[in-house]
């Protein structure tokens, strides 16, 4: 989260190309003059602080509501797999696994696809193709997630069952990742739906990042005798790497929290299986599914704890991404400032 520079800065923030005529900083001179400026500043400060406060309040609320479950199950909540509302025994390991695994599959598919789209649009496509392709890819983001879910149930799963899974099993059937009978609703289906949903986010941000790479980078590479592909691979992509990682993390954040489309195709089973062909569950889906009929306090509290874990995982992923961007950015890369 970027906080706005609210405090009046002593030095004038004007661009270096423009000469400031007065030696007196502009902000300081405004301070005493106009009361409305002070009101304006107070309001902006309040607005800027409201969001971080909201996040803290959210965390506290989740924590307090989850406290009965935390007290009762302790850390075993994180690695046990029983989810039995009748006996009131709860363990969230399958959901944590399912959330991470489905998002991982989604990234595995979406990252090459989205980067490919972005590179094609910025570097290779004829001018008249660029806008329509970019528009159509971004249109994917406008489709409601329940529509993706229904499409998954009625189109994707039958397609997977008939054309994708048999060859996958024939080639990779010996690995633990493609074991067991495929019934349709599965981790694989959930991952693919997520991949399609996050492609537009990653592609749109990546495209902006690549467009911001200065032409001089490409020209230099081409001037050294590189092919167009080599120029993209050795000059353009490394230059924009911080922004590209940011784009991927944006997609990941969306994948971690997606609910409706996933629950329709993932099978909703509290079980951990390495095989992508088996049903799984995600945290967001479980909360959405079970919240309305959670009658006992412990049940409700367990669901709140799942929400808390999802919240923490999202924060950790974002913090990790921020670290990664700082490490990668070092210096010149495009987009590092924006993120």
């Amino acid at each position, binding site marked *: 989260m970027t906080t706005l520079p609210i405090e009046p800065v002593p030095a004038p923030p004007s661009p270096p190309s423009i000469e400031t005529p007065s030696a007196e900083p502009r902000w300081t001179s405004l301070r005493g003059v106009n009361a409305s400026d002070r009101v304006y500043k107070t309001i902006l400060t309040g607005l800027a602080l409201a969001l971080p406060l909201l996040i803290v309040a959210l965390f506290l609320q989740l924590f307090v509501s989850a406290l009965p479950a935390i007290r009762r199950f302790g850390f075993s909540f994180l690695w046990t797999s*029983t*989810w*039995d*509302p*009748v*006996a009131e025994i709860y363990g969230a390991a399958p959901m944590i696994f399912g959330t991470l695994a489905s998002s991982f599959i989604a990234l595995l598919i979406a990252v090459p696809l989205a980067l490919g789209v972005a590179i094609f649009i910025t570097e290779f496509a004829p001018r008249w193709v660029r806008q329509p392709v970019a528009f159509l890819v971004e249109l994917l983001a406008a489709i409601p997630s329940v529509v993706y879910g229904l499409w998954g*149930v*009625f189109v994707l*799963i*039958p397609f997977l069952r008939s054309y994708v899974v048999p060859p996958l099993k024939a080639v990779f059937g010996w690995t633990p990742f493609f074991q067991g*009978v495929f*019934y*349709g*609703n599965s981790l694989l289906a959930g991952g693919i739906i997520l991949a399609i949903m996050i492609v537009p986010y990653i592609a749109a941000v990546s495209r902006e990042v690549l467009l911001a790479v200065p032409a001089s980078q490409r020209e230099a590479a081409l001037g050294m005798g590189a092919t167009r592909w080599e120029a993209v691979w050795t000059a353009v992509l490394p230059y924009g790497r911080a922004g590209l990682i940011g784009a991927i993390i944006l997609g990941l954040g969306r994948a971690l929290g997606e609910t409706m489309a996933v*629950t*329709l195709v993932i*099978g*909703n*089973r*509290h079980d951990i299986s390495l095989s992508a062909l088996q*049903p799984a*569950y995600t945290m967001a*889906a479980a909360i*959405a*599914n*079970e919240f*309305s*009929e*959670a*009658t006992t306090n412990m049940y409700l509290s367990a669901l709140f704890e799942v929400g808390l874990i999802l919240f923490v995982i999202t924060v950790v992923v974002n913090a990790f991404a921020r670290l990664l961007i700082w490490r990668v950015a070092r210096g010149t890369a495009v987009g590092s400032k924006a993120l």
Partner: protein
Amino acid sequence: MKTTRTIALAALLCAAAPAAAQVQLNGAGATFPNIIYSKWMYTFNQANPTIVLNYQSIGSGGGIRQFSDGTVDFGGTDAPMSDSAIAAIQGNVLHIPTVLGAVVVIYNLPGVTAQLKFTPDVIADIFLGKITKWNDARIASVNAGVTLPATDVVVVHRAEGSGTSFAFTDYLTKVSPEWASQVGKGASVNWPVGLGGRGNEGVSATVNQTPGAIGYTELGYATINKMAYGQVRNSAGKFVSPTLESVTAAAAGVLSKLGANTDFRVSLTNPDGAAAYPISTMTWLLVHKTYADAAKAKALVQFIWWAETEGQALAPSLGYAPLPQQLRPWIQARLKSITGSAAQ
């Protein structure tokens, strides 16, 4: 300009005058009866414009919670409140049954056109994961003349908590000791096997898309969508198809045994009676015994009594079975006991 404003103001005042005598009743709860409740509330409001009713189908659990917290005037639930939940609100609740439904066993077996028959132990063992092939001898023995394929049985259950799951697991708990000890009954349980579908539509879509699948949905949903569902053997040893008549028969079988002082918190599953469909359900309105606002109490009683009498005629066309007639005097006695303190 000024005259129009005055006229508009006068019109507003006229509209506001009857609103002063208007009673607004808010309810929330089970999704299963939502269609008939909406129909009832609309029809009732046409005849009684001063009583405005509103029902939000947020699920039975949410209904019980909001009713107990006092954020709504009445609740709706497919599973009766537990003793501890009733004690938590000092017993200030009445369960009033409204309509009946049934849970049907749906399946997808390409090539099988005859209506399949299920015994209680076969259903339990399928959902326990002990019967895994459709041509299992125990399924075949009660379906003479049907060629069953050797496909895998794919169990589909509700992913979210639901009254439908409650009725279904309540039934399995009664007919299978193993189910009772291993799984138990509840709006959501720890399913031994199977895929979770979201909502009636999620379960039926998954069953329709998966050859060899078996699941369960509400009767109304299955009939509207023309799904294949099975007959179930009842406690009298007869295979009965789920119909509105066999559901009402199930209710009559259970309720005839109740005394007039019953609190109506009974389960309709696995009832007596040769014509009774064994996985039948009842849904309740939750009302307080005493209301602080006498006008509200009066309006609510008026509405519920209308729903229990004239309103019942609307039920069959919407896929719900009406309550047996003999319940009416009992319900009337309960409604008469509701009090509202006029001193506000």
